[in-house]
């Protein structure tokens, strides 16, 4: 079996290479059914339905963003009403200074809600994905460079409770995985 990275360091997991999206998809289904939890599949593009195949739930990001938007909304309400209605209530263009001036504040409230939501979406995604992280054991494997090109990979991590090197190797082989490699950190 090939070894990538520094063999002295702790093993990250066993990785295998696949040729097509459908192979990878079915491999993921079987890994899920075999009861592995700490595994991942890598592809050059997102594969439709892969979350189900891997047994992953829907991303939490959608719920998170609601709170981001709410923060933006409240910030904007404060930003517009506190100076213009409380600190220095000034009648401009014949508009009231109380709550009924809200149509004139609405554009700003709207924009800030969107802005904060967008920040939540992007930075939430990066945090949930553990990015930026420029070093990762998988990068020690030379073949893994093809993941952003046209190859598909899967890895079953060593920290999975069911992980046993020989079993996993045979299992990956039975799934049609090629170039099965033990990936280490560096």
């Amino acid at each position, binding site marked *: 079996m090939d070894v990538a990275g520094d063999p002295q360091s702790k093993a990250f997991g066993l990785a295998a290479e696949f040729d097509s999206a459908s192979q990878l998809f079915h491999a993921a289904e079987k890994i899920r059914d075999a009861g592995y939890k700490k595994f991942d599949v890598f592809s050059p593009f997102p594969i*439709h*339905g892969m979350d189900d195949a891997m047994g992953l739930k829907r991303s939490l990001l*959608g719920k998170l963003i*609601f709170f981001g938007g709410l923060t933006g909304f409240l910030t904007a309400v404060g930003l517009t009403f506190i100076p213009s209605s409380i600190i220095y209530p000034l009648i401009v*263009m*014949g*508009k009231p200074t109380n709550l009924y001036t809200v*149509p*004139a504040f*609405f554009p700003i409230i709207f924009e800030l809600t969107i802005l904060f939501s967008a920040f939540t979406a992007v930075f939430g995604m990066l945090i949930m994905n553990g990015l930026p992280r420029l070093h990762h054991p998988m990068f020690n494997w030379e073949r893994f460079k093809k993941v952003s090109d046209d190859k598909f990979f899967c890895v079953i991590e060593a920290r999975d409770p069911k992980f046993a090197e020989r079993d996993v190797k045979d299992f990956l082989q039975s799934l049609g995985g090629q170039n099965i490699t033990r990936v280490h950190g560096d």
Partner: protein
Amino acid sequence: MSDHAPAEPKPEFFDYKHVGGRFLGLVGLAAVAFVAVLVGAVLDPKQFAFSYLFAFFFFLTICMGGLFWTLVHHAVDAEWSVVVRRQMENLASLLVVMAVLFIPLFFVREELWKWMRPENAHDPLLLEKAAYLNLPFFTFRVIFYFAFFILCGGLLRAFSIAQDRDGSPRYTILNRRVTFASALLFAVCLTFAAVDWLMGLDYHWFSTMWGVYIFAGTALSSMCVLVLIITALRSAGYLQNVVTVEHYHIMGKLMMAFTIFWAYIGFSQYMLIWYANIPEETVYFLRRNTGTWWYGSQFMVVGHFFVPFLMLLFQRGKKTPLFLCGMASWILLMHMLDMYIIVMPAYHKAGFDLSAFLFDIPCLIAIGCTLAAVFLKRLGESALYPVRDPRLPQSLALKN
């Protein structure tokens, strides 16, 4: 990919045993309501005129929306909507009935549209507009709008049904042609129908956004009706393997999108008039934001936008047919309120008038039951979905 499609389902036809006596009940109810409306019309023609216009336009928007969604389907060559398209076509085919139901309005025209009254004939403002606001041209326009609606909706439906027989893609192309030829005319007819019959209630007032505002309500309300119709059919045992939760998801998303669009258009129109504060324009909102109309207008902001927006924001709701039906009914109620606040303040200046409800409700029942009865008739005339549409496999296999 189409290789994921389930086995081609059998064409389904509507069986009247599901409605049975209820069909006659509808007809009977419509007849009774019409008698009540007629009595009302004799007793208080003016109140009748406004109540009837309100009910008429409420249902007209739904039917025009059916036509709109059919046009959109063909214009963008959509896939997902194939399975629900027949019901949109059926909705659009009700525009024939709406044309007949317009006739009573013609008799009470002077009660509704003040510019037709002889005593206003010398209003200098009206004289300026006389080239547009005159009875012969008005009549011509009424005929033109309905002729267009009936022709366009009729052709689209006829070609679609013809395709059920031989599955020739020629009909898809024909419908596309009809769509391209009529898309612009549809926009014009909808806009000027809204200008003539609603904006014309106060011939002094004007807003360039008016047609778009009415259109927003049109598209939204008919999508809600579509959800209700599809669910009713499903609960009667039809379309079981045809319309899936994925289709509901898309219909829910469209409800959401047009809830936002309605709010966007409504807000823009209100805000611009409020902000510029020009008396000749503010007159419209002044009346609708005073008296008890104020409560209705305020309630609409919450009920027509915030409630459906928050409710439809999350995916789970859009994928639950029962929930979506609840939202659809709610939005339809709000759309009804919207139409009410457009029409009725032109007569009752101070606010909601309880006695008006005695007229509104029979009008709603009369028109609604008539349309429902004709719709049931339409249901049986053809398969419940376009069984041989070339895009049907993709629509059946829809995955979001």
